[in-house]
């Protein structure tokens, strides 16, 4: 084969918070690490995270990792794995200190400690008063963290492959993953990167929905690569719709606005969350608030000419608080909604935001899949961390402030585990030529010329279909229709042709490859959702309105082969503390 090849101890695909935090551990251990990213690292979507990262530092009021754990388990609607959640909540504290030491410009309290704001679903003392657990750098926390991690990687001399697009994982003759085929976007040339361990840290797939807070790049590339490698995706039906996207556009307005004291009103000026969550009100969990907004609109209490949004009121906070704590939100509102929140409320509506599900891993970031008879096996040499992975710490609904935490904790841990793995497995496996041919075939397919639908057409139809049939409320009828439409779209995909076959920085080719990834992932959402006949967390079915722990307290696993579903038990046993048994979830 004439494909240029590079060799590294570890290959990290994705340069957001998870990938970069893993890379830092590896570079620190003197391993040769390559980070492949389809965009320059600081363009990764971690940059857009606003509100902050949760850790029970207790800087504002008493707090404990155990309370954080309770809130996360409850927030997950009891679908999260309690061992992983305990681990994450414990690790949160040193993780945030480590970030601060690395240079993150956190906002500060008068005593010099890190400022923490209240966020949805947070409580003191296992469901008591509101906690303030979200460590913030104004409302640009993700930006501050991503830039800091990139900066520390510069210091560590990590090897970056910027603007390289990962095509597929490659295997040796035994089927063990040993690197990936990537495409240099600038030249249009393929490159084989062989590695002893590979970490998927490719982020989410909000782009499968038409209205989303997610960036253009969030197309589920890693999740789709895993699917094509025969690995199932877990809990894909659980997709979070963030309550407050700018109406009609989808840009995010952080939950921090409500943490700082903002609240939602309907067309009558009523603070309607009081009806849906009498205690937590606007700081109820995101699934609860999103459903409330959609219900208000459906029942005719929406604002505006078409009554299709609600309002987020902030003006009572005063200009000083808004400028100090929410400067980015003020800017975004002015640009995209044409309103200044200091004076008038912001029109908002739920926007596709976050994937709770993903590539199944254990709490060390190792990809794990069923091996028959209820046991699980680690996929040798393959890791996943961040939004593309499912540890599972978010279960059926993620709490605000837990996603930055997830990527940092599990990115770091995957890095540490890879160090051990590479020490024990120091020899590079030989890539099997059939595996490489298959990956090259994915590229070659787009060289086909002739007439056919365009990527843009299919992409638009697909995203509309996902929005219409896999949104906030899902019934059997809506979802079955959606699944059938998706099957039709999937059948049309092979007919799609590119008209531009040039090599240099051909973004049409990249978008074609991304469309394939999105459609693979979109199908996993639709099929998983159709099968789960209960309402839990973000998966809300008017035809099965109750949570059904008897039948459905289990993780879904979707296999691409035949759109097959499988299930595995939730790990309800924590590492050291008592389990939190499922209870009715009220806020």
């Amino acid at each position, binding site marked *: 084969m004439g494909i240029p090849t590079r060799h590294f101890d570890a290959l990290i695909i994705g340069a957001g918070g998870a990938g970069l935090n893993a890379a830092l551990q590896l570079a620190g251990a003197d391993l040769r690490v390559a980070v492949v990213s389809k965009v320059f690292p600081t363009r990764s979507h971690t*940059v*857009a995270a606003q509100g902050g990262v949760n850790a029970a530092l207790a800087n504002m009021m008493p707090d404990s990792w155990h309370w954080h754990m309770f809130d996360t388990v409850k927030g997950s609607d009891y679908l999260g794995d309690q061992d992983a959640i305990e681990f994450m909540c414990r690790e949160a504290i040193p993780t945030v200190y480590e970030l601060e030491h690395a240079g993150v410009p*956190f906002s500060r309290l008068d005593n*010099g400690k890190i400022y923490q704001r209240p966020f949805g679903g947070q409580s003191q003392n296992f469901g008591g008063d509101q906690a303030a657990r979200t460590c913030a*750098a104004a409302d640009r926390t993700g930006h501050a963290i991503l830039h800091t991690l990139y900066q520390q990687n510069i210091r560590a001399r990590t090897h970056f492959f910027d603007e390289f697009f990962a095509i597929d994982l490659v295997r040796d003759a035994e089927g063990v993953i040993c690197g990936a085929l990537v495409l240099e976007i600038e030249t249009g040339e393929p490159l084989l990167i062989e590695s002893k361990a590979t970490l998927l840290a490719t982020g989410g797939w909000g782009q499968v929905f038409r209205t989303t807070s997610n960036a253009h790049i969030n197309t589920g590339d890693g999740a789709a690569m895993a699917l094509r490698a025969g690995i199932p995706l877990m809990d894909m039906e659980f997709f979070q719709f963030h309550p407050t996207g700018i109406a009609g556009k989808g840009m995010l307005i952080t939950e921090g606005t409500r943490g700082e004291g903002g609240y939602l009103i309907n067309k009558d000026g009523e603070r309607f969350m009081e009806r849906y969550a009498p205690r937590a009100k606007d700081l109820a969990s995101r699934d609860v608030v999103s459903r409330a907004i959609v219900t208000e609109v459906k029942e005719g209490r929406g604002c505006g000419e078409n009554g299709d949004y609600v309002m987020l009121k902030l003006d009572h906070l005063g200009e000083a608080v808004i400028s100090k704590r929410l400067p980015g939100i003020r800017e975004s509102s002015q640009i995209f909604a*044409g309103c200044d929140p200091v004076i008038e409320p912001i029109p908002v509506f739920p926007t596709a935001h976050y994937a709770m599900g993903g590539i199944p891993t254990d709490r060390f970031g190792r990809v794990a899949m069923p091996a028959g008879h209820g046991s699980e096996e680690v996929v040798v040499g393959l890791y996943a961390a961040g939004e593309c992975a499912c540890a599972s710490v978010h279960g059926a609904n993620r709490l605000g402030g837990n996603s930055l935490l997830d990527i940092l904790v599990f990115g770091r841990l995957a890095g540490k585990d890879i160090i051990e793995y590479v020490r024990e497995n120091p020899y590079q496996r030989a890539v099997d030529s059939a595996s490489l041919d298959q990956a090259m075939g994915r590229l070659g397919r787009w060289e086909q010329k002739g007439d056919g639908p*365009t990527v843009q057409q299919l992409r638009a139809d697909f995203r509309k279909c996902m929005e219409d049939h896999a949104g906030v409320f899902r019934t059997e009828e809506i979802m079955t229709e959606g699944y059938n439409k998706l099957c039709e779209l999937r059948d049309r995909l092979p007919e799609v042709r590119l008209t531009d076959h040039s090599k240099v920085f051909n973004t049409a080719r990249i978008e074609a490859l991304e469309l394939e990834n999105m459609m693979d992932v979109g199908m996993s959402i639709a099929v998983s959702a159709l099968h789960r006949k209960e309402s839990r967390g973000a998966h809300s079915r008017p035809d099965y309105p109750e949570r059904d722990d008897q039948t459905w307290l289990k993780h879904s696993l979707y296999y691409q082969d035949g759109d097959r579903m499988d299930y595995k038990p939730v790990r309800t046993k924590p590492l050291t503390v008592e389990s939190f048994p499922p209870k009715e979830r009220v806020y």
Partner: protein
Amino acid sequence: MKISVYRYNPDTDTKPRMQDYEVKTFQGMMLRDALLEVKKQDESFSFRHSCGEGVCGSDGVNVNGRNVLACITPITELKEPIQVRPFPGRPVIRDLVVDMTQFYEQYRAVQPYLVRKDPLPEQEILQSPEDRDKLDGLYECILCGCCSTACPSFWWNPEKFHGPAALLQSWRFLADSRDQATEERLDALDGPYKLFRCHSIMNCVEVCPKGLNPTRAIGKIKDLMLDKGV
């Protein structure tokens, strides 16, 4: 609305040209939306973009002679005919995509990371709100490159002059009460080019889409150098 876009594909073109497209406008339309519309009509058109809300810094372009972030530039603010070109002074890879290698190299050259020499505390390094406020207007940089590619000094000496974006980050760390590498940072900036090629032309301030002020930061570095007698 007519939009005129710079086109150059090294695979097929011998020289660049401007190409006109007719795009339908809508309320709240940003320049990025217009470019996406062009892409819809002609998939061979390439430009970088991602978050669509002005935080990732991917879609810096030059429109009607001014560097902007396309995703937060309302088309109503632009005079017709709208002419969109790549950033000035950078080698063009294709269409609006430019080679930013030197820009990133200059960023890396200022050691843009916190250096701490004391043993680290068990908890956070304390910082007063007043000291933290000194980082406002500095840490928010998104590395879009609008400033450096609008800077005549950077056009002339992109391999020697750090440029406004990198120097803003240099000051971001000099201004951080937690950083302990002031001397090394100042020493490294010595010489006629890295810092002192800034002639306070202030194009950087003019174009920064985040409202930051690299010229002021550069002035502060110079003041600190004088203070320290470097």
